[in-house]
């Protein structure tokens, strides 16, 4: 207890003595966390959107003629051989006609006189729902095209490709901003601690002469790093929350944004971001203290 009290007292004293560099570090950490979490928020929401849109994702394989039961079995076997699927549905010409009729609703009379088998039979393949499978859809479609008796394979090729590119781009941005976060937090905190250590060399030397343990000397700096991470990342997250609320207010009303689910991080993610930044800063402080004090 006494150890903790002394360490806390030392930490607060250190931070007060170097308040200018503390503010600079806090600002940098906050900004890095804000940039990273902003892109991560977009990414996680995009994933959510992708999942919702993916629920409707299916490949429609148009066939030349109605397959016999034996042929259906063969199709099923060949499809399953290539990839796992959620389910496969065979749609006959008549079923397709009925669906079309239902879709037309009040205008279904336009089909009067049209033969009930004018639409080709098809197989509807529902791939397993996961965003990673989007990249495989194209290959899957190419494979289905090679099956005997297949006229054409159709899926929402364009949006899938665009959406996939967007997700890929977001991943790169997140990796970059994550690296930025790691570098700035670690380097800035390490730099601030280094300055503090150098300016207090005389005091630290005296502590050693008076019989202070390595932990007694090191812990306040470790705590200082952790505090910087905790405060900086909390400020970053609060700034993001304010930005999120502002965006929601700006786009309130009948806009695209209201059609898409745009939500803030769940508390677990928020805590993880704050925790990671705190740990990173503590690690930066630890390595500097270790190097300079040679403890």
């Amino acid at each position, binding site marked *: 207890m*006494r150890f903790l009290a*002394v360490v806390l007292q030392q930490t607060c004293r250190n931070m007060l003595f170097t308040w200018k560099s503390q503010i600079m570090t806090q600002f940098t950490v906050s900004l890095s966390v804000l940039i990273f979490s902003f892109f991560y928020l977009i990414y996680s929401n995009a994933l959510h959107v992708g999942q919702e849109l993916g629920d409707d994702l299916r490949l429609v394989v148009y066939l030349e003629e109605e397959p016999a039961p034996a042929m259906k079995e063969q199709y099923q076997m060949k499809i399953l051989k290539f990839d796992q699927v959620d389910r496969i549905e065979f749609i006959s010409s008549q079923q397709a006609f009925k669906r079309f009729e239902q879709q037309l609703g009040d205008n279904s009379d336009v089909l009067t006189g049209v033969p009930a088998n004018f639409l080709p039979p098809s197989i509807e393949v529902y791939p397993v729902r996961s965003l990673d499978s989007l990249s495989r859809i194209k290959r899957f479609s190419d494979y289905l095209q090679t099956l005997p008796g297949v006229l054409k394979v159709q899926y929402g090729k364009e949006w899938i490709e665009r959406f996939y590119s967007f997700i890929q781009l977001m991943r790169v941005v997140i990796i970059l901003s994550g690296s930025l976060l790691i570098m700035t937090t670690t380097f800035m905190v390490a730099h601030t601690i280094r300055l503090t250590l150098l300016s207090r060399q005389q005091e630290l030397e005296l502590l050693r002469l008076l*019989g202070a343990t390595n932990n007694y000397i090191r812990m306040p700096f470790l705590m200082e790093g952790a505090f910087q991470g905790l405060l900086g990342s909390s400020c970053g997250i609060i700034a993001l929350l304010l930005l999120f609320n502002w965006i929601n207010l700006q786009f309130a009303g009948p806009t695209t944004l209201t059609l898409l689910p745009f939500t803030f991080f769940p508390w677990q993610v928020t805590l993880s971001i704050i925790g990671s930044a705190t740990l990173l800063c503590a690690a930066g402080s630890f390595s500097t203290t270790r190097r300079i004090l040679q403890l």
Partner: protein
Amino acid sequence: MSQETTYPDVMIDMIKVTKVYPPDVQAVSDISLTVNRGEIVFLTGMSGAGKTTLLRLISRIEKPTKGMVEVAGIDVAKLPQRSIHLLRRKIGMAYQDFKLLPDRTVADNIAFSMEVVYRPQSFIEKRTRDLLEQLDLIKKYATRTEELSRGEQQRVSIARAVANFPEIVLADEPTGNLDAETTNRVVNLFNQLNRQGTTILIATHDRSLYQQTSHRVVELRFGRIPAQQPAYPEDSNGDDPASSYSPSLEV
């Protein structure tokens, strides 16, 4: 910790200790010195005789180039870095250059030595006030040490050295900047500690401190203890050194 000595009364035992600073400055050479628990020993000699080096070797600020230094049964040269604090907590050292933190108050500087051993705040405050009263510095309690005279700084350094009731006090020129009255106060403080069993080593030029003393005076000359000097306690035949204690340093 290292091996226990076979003589429980021996507090400091230096055997054939040599310290050479690079490139080849021989600070002390082949010194053997034994100090018993509860003894007061004066180290005298000209500037550069090796008094400060000897104190630095005892507190493991320096490692001996040759020989062995044992303090309270601990071979200090073999002490690993992570355990040095255990030795330093047994020793209170008043440095010749004071080693005070100029931007901290007198009280803060004295409290420093007690904080590192996690003394309660109430104890720290009381002990600091007591020491400052004894050394006639109580009015300077909240003064920054950079604003003090050298004599006052010296007293703060002494107060810090003794604050933690160390087993050994090493004082390097403790009265160099003090007038007679203040010197008396410092001497009284050392006497008081010695009565409680503290071993005290005083490196000094100040003849008045040891001229009429019954305590052992060891003179260093060019880093050596001349052959006729009492490098061992006179009562090393088994008498308790504390029994030869005199109530003052007889200054």
